[in-house]
């Protein structure tokens, strides 16, 4: 079992809210994204990984209180409102939790060569000598 496997659906929903282009990913793209996240989490303390899963579970079910449906069943604008509340939450602990999830979502998405190409980033070891 990987860190993300028990919370895969909600993690993917969060990624699509953080980086809307992720909604276009096919299954192979998602596998690549999640593999990058798993590598980044390798060696992190077990307690941190538990907190990460707990935070994703909380995102999924706290949405029920506000919208009557879990996070994964919300429209994109509703999901964005849920995440905005976490980002601006009065408790630093909650803001930091969201910041961690957001960072992992961005790492997975922008860590992929396809996303790098799509935004036009083309740094190259040859630097100035590469014809552009």
């Amino acid at each position, binding site marked *: 079992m990987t860190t993300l496997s028990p919370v895969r659906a909600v993690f993917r929903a969060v990624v699509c*809210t*953080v*980086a*809307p*282009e992720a909604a276009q990913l096919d299954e192979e793209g998602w596998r690549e994204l999640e593999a*990058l996240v798993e*590598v*980044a989490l390798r*060696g*992190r303390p077990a307690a941190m990984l538990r907190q990460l899963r707990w935070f994703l579970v909380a995102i999924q079910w706290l949405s029920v209180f506000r919208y009557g449906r879990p996070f994964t069943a919300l429209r994109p604008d509703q999901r*964005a409102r849920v*995440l905005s509340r976490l*980002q*601006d939450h009065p408790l*630093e*602990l*909650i*803001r*930091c939790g*969201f*910041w*961690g999830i*957001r*960072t992992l*979502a*961005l*790492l997975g*998405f*922008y*860590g992929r060569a396809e*996303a*790098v190409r*799509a*935004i*036009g*980033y*083309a*740094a*190259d*070891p*040859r*630097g*100035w*000598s*590469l014809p*552009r």
Partner: protein
Amino acid sequence: MIRRSYDIVVVGSGAGGGAVAEELSPLCRQGARIAVLEKGPKLRDEEFTGRELEMAQALYEDGGGFLTAERTMTLAFGCAYGGSTAVYTGTSLLPPQRILERWNVPELAYSDVEQRARKYAAENNVHFLENGLLNENNRLFVDGCRALNYRVQQFPVNLRGCRGSSLCNLGCPNQAKQGTDRVQLPRAEQNGVEVVTRCEALRIGEKTLFARVHEKPAGGKGEPSAWEPGEYQIDAKAIVVCAGAVNSPALLIRSGLARRLPRLGHGFTCHPAIIMVAEHNRPITNFVGHPKSFYLYQFAESDRFLLETCMYFPFTTAKSIAGFGEEHSRFMRAFPRLQMILVLACDQVDAHNRVTIDPLGRPVVHYRFTPEVMRGLVRGAVTSAKIFFAAGAVRVHLPIAQSFTIQRADAGRLDQIAAHPDFKPGKLPISAAHLQGGCAMGRGPADSVTDAYGHVHGIPWLFVADSSLFPDSLEINPYLTIMALADRVAETIRKEAHQLL
């Protein structure tokens, strides 16, 4: 437990460890046995690919995402042959006189530190990059500063044959940056110093050091260690700790020295930083060319911030842009049109900010943002926004504002925004790479960990020689100052060699 014996063991191979290794290496010709223990790997030249995540995993502690205890800031520091000099941009500034005078360390004369820093500037080929090699990301910073009558300055850099890959922070793929991995360590090895990579220092006992050599992970980068994987006890007549401002204090705390050295781990500073981005209405050269060629220092003393040009990679940029969703993506899609500025706060020693260890002995960095640091970051962010607009940017990402995107038409509201910033730790992406303090120099155990020559108080065979020696923030890029202090420590060891060895 495998047992080894050396005359001198140096822990860490960055700016401090590399300088110490080179300076002590002539002793090898007189028969001394010297080893440098480096926790990270040594990569082969062809392994520097410039690919962001794989290089960050290979060269940085925790892949560059070492979190503070409060989880409101990430710390980036190298974990490789050459330490952080493998991943810095090579900016080479002499120590500011006013700072060394403020440190007020007995027997630490500014002129002595400056002279030694100049020695390393010469040794590492420090010079100003020629005009033709400056990219638009840097030129626009100069244009903006000049339009506002700011006193912009060019960074001296330690490059040799820079091709402008812009990948300095991922390890130069062209071996152009003259860090200790390219200059001091190879010279030390030539003179007979042994460098043992993948070797993690666990704790120090009486003239002995316990270490663990790690196996090269499957699929990982770098050469295997020269030593077999396993647990080691290494006897040494002198030990020089140069593991950086996080790992040096942590090693000494793990070694049971906190009781006799109550200041151990205290006094941690790091120049907390935010990355500012702005969009121009045309592509600019940004991911080609040296990324960090200019800086603005004039506000360091008055407003507690420093600005530097910078250019980061897709994931680092993405995590540094606050918020999420379409507004965030729009800046990312504009990458070829982005200009970037790094805002660094000139923090000062605070009682809360320190290094400790967790129950497993791993370092824990406690850091809270003082009101002064928050003010410095806010003023720095707003000053950056003014520079961006003065340089022609059409919109700016201002992470300290309620609404992150500021259009050019709203540039006149910047001072108003600065008066009511939305500074929320945990919401604002903050990182730091200038880690300092934790084993400060000073008068005695009541106020410090070492004397002005890196001697740990009360332990004549134990020395510290890295940025953890700083009694307070340096307020500029620190590596030449680290090397200068390490040079003093090495000279002291050479002078005391007849007693120590």
